[in-house]
């Protein structure tokens, strides 16, 4: 094999490795850096075209379970803030789930549907049907902090309902799921006009 041919292979490999690394760490893989540090505080991102109401984004570092007891969130249920370093899989949860986990799920673009303990069984069944239909996007949890009804949360956005309303719930999920992934995934929510 000639020297030129050997150098061609070496340079080709180097260029290929650099290109692949750049490709892997750009775009959606940027979140890898965020997954170490968490998310920074920001003003609420107002989007009149979206359902629910915006909530100020809290500083959102990773914390331990011991620290979680001292955290005061700016909404009930919270839509951002200190959270655990690991997250939870989307799906239907039978028991309450710590705020530190639901917040991390929202940081990954999921919508969390919280319901009060006294929500009638028929309405709960309706929520479970929706959670199954949007299985990759929704975390459904009973929330003992809710006095009544249910609440829909996504990163920096909340909607409170006093009863089950299918279209309003699915509308929130379709509009808000994937809006945030360790950073806003689109530059604007409501295009002008």
């Amino acid at each position, binding site marked *: *094999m000639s020297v030129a*041919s*050997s150098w061609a*292979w*070496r340079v080709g*490999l180097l260029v*290929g490795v650099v290109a*692949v*690394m750049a490709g*892997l*760490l750009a775009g959606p*893989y940027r979140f*890898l850096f965020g*997954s*170490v540090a968490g998310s920074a505080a920001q003003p609420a991102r107002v989007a009149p075209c979206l359902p629910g109401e915006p909530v100020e984004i809290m500083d959102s570092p*990773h*914390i*331990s*379970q*011991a*620290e979680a007891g001292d955290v005061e969130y700016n909404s009930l249920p919270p839509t951002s803030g200190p959270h*655990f*370093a*690991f*997250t*939870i*899989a*989307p*799906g*239907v*949860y*039978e028991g309450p*789930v*710590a705020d530190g*986990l639901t917040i991390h799920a929202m940081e*990954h673009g999921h919508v969390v549907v919280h319901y009060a303990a006294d929500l009638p069984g028929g309405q709960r069944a309706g929520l*479970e*049907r929706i*959670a*199954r*239909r*949007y*299985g*990759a*996007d929704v975390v*459904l949890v009973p929330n003992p902090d809710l006095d009544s009804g249910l609440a829909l949360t996504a990163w920096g956005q909340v909607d409170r309902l006093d009863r089950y309303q299918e279209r309003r719930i699915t509308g929130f999920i379709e509009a808000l799921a994937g809006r945030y992934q360790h950073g806003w995934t689109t530059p604007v929510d409501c295009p002008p006009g």
Partner: protein
Amino acid sequence: MRPGAPPRRDAPTTIWMEQLVTEPTDAGQAAALARVVVSHDGGEYLLGRPDLGLYLVVPEPGAVFVTTLQAGGSVPEATTRASQVAGAEVDGEDFLAGLGAAGLWDPPAGAPPAGRGRRSREIRWIEGVSPAAARRLFGPLAWIGYGLATVAVTGLLAVRPDLRPSYEHVWWLPDPVLSVLLLVPLQLTLAAGHEAWHWLAGRAVGVPAIFRVSYRGVFLVFETDLTQIVATPRRQRYGAFLAGMCFDVTVLAATLGARLAHRADLLVLPGWVDRLLAAVALTLLLGIVWQWAALFLRSDGYAVLANALRCHDLWRANWLTSKHRLWRLSEAEAAELAAISGHDRRVAGWFGLLFLAGLVVMGWLVVTFGIPFTVGMLGWVWHSLVHPSIGSVAFWESVAVVALVVGQYAALPVLAWREGRLRRAGALR
């Protein structure tokens, strides 16, 4: 046998007839002869001692010579038959001696003494499965089933992104350590099923494969020894190589099907079951992708491709070719590369690009699944230890995780010291 057609070892060393020393036929040689397997491989024939892991490539007259001896013929008879096939006079005694020098007449490989080396155990009960029963799992109907499962998995993952597993699914419970601990037995069961399917496929084609369970560190490992598969025609080997992935893709199809039915309200599963199925789907999918990406680790995918490309030692040929291109070869390595068949070297000329593509896919797996999961787990452990709550489950789980990880690495120097001590005492070979 004849000039220009020496037996070629299907491994790093090439044995040339001119270098061989004549050895007399003896009782040990006769016993070893019974252990030799002969298989046809394209234009070449393979003489193998599976118990020694030794395989030699010979021309047809060489195979005829050995099969004549195995049939009870004398050396002169075998020489006559080999000469007829070769169309020229051959030197049977010389060929016999050459095979002996190559190690074909060595005594049988014994099992390692108990308590020495890596601990492993052969699974005997599995040998109760008859070849006829095993063949039913690899008959035409079964292959149609495996094909349909592959189509179903590919189709579902393509058109239903919501069914694609993510690293988040490892945490199918709100407790991260419990999630992993409960998932491990399932993963071991799936790994055992994968290996057992390899074994069954070997049994179906009459290859006496060995199914073993052993452990490395604290990790349980299942292994199937399929080295004797080289005694079968190449066409028959695909089943054994693909069998593990057939098992994986069938279970994956069932898992995705159950999750799809759950989404469509046709099958209502408890929430934890659906999440657990997602974790199982993640395990299986990563396993299948790994088999096709980790070609450089001689995965199942590598075995399939090397078989299809009719190569004998593609892995080594590719390694040496790549090293030659990117760095330099020592004299021994250059000689080793030159001794590998021209066909393998020609394939290695472009196969390196497939190795590279596999590496890229492995990198993607690490970035997409490995790093986020590891960062999440280590972050949790770190925060639980730096801001401890002694009475919490999270703190003690974190202590256990650290003890397990540190124990794995701390055990290495201890094991190395013990191995050195045993070696010096002559208790370890």
